């Protein structure tokens, strides 16, 4: 394997590790903490706002600097792979609403679900199984 390829996979792996360390330090791997953010009129815990703030400061900087990169391409790939869709339709809004319902009921979204695999918590594994099933259902019924 060429050294560029090694760096490529090392950095992807590192990015994954950093992501879950960030989730862990911020408390977002704890479903109760996420759900309490959504519990405005009950046990409200606004911590998630501060997670978003921290993540957005660095991410905004990253996407700002992206256009100023020399050669206009990432360090280990030939091109940037960016989302191109701009349409706001029922698929987007209805999908987001459905996601919000599931996120609130469980306190879990895809990142923390995978990061929590090592707990082998049966409720978490059940969630992951159902989530993967949901992804397949969308694929087979909408070709999306």
């Amino acid at each position, binding site marked *: 394997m060429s050294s560029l390829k090694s760096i490529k996979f090392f950095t992807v792996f590192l*990015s994954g590790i*950093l992501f879950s360390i960030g989730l862990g330090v911020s408390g977002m*791997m704890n479903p109760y903490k996420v759900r309490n953010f959504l519990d405005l009129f009950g046990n409200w815990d606004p911590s998630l706002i501060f997670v978003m703030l*921290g993540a957005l400061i660095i991410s905004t900087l990253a996407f700002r600097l992206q256009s100023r990169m020399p050669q206009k391409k990432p360090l280990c*790939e030939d091109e940037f792979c960016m989302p191109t869709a701009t349409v706001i339709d029922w698929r987007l809004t209805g999908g987001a609403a459905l*996601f919000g*319902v599931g*996120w609130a009921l*469980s306190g879990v979204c895809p990142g923390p679900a995978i990061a929590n695999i090592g707990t082998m918590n049966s409720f978490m594994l059940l969630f992951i199984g159902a989530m993967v099933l949901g992804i397949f259902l969308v694929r087979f019924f909408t070709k999306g």
Partner: protein
Amino acid sequence: MSVMTTSVLTPFTPLESFVGGLIIGVSVFVLLYFNGKVAGISGIIKGSFFSAKKDLLWRLFFLGGLAVGGMVVIKVLPQNTALTFHSHFLVQIIAGLCVGIGTGLSNGCTSGHGICGIARLSMRSIVATLIFMGAGFVTVYFAKLWGIL
């Protein structure tokens, strides 16, 4: 008090949460600068089932890193994880289905729309984030009212 799931109070942790957020931001930075990819977890999971073979390996490395980093957190900060998480199996199945179908339809979740999309000033992601957070607030309110949570 709910009969189906456990509700647990959590302390407000602005500093730890902010620092954790910064680390997530660095993760986004690394993936973008080295690999040209957007750190949207639902999309990375979806693509690991349905994308071409040459586009598969980096996804598995990212998800592997996510799981391994999670194991470090479980070891060092077990109280910050789902180690003792308790719910109802039906609630978890319905929630998982909603998250899988919802993120599949809208092409993004908290990371792809909520962090990367807003950072890119994507109108789609701003709309999606407002909707899923709004739906989340409403869902917890009624789920508690009806004794589901």
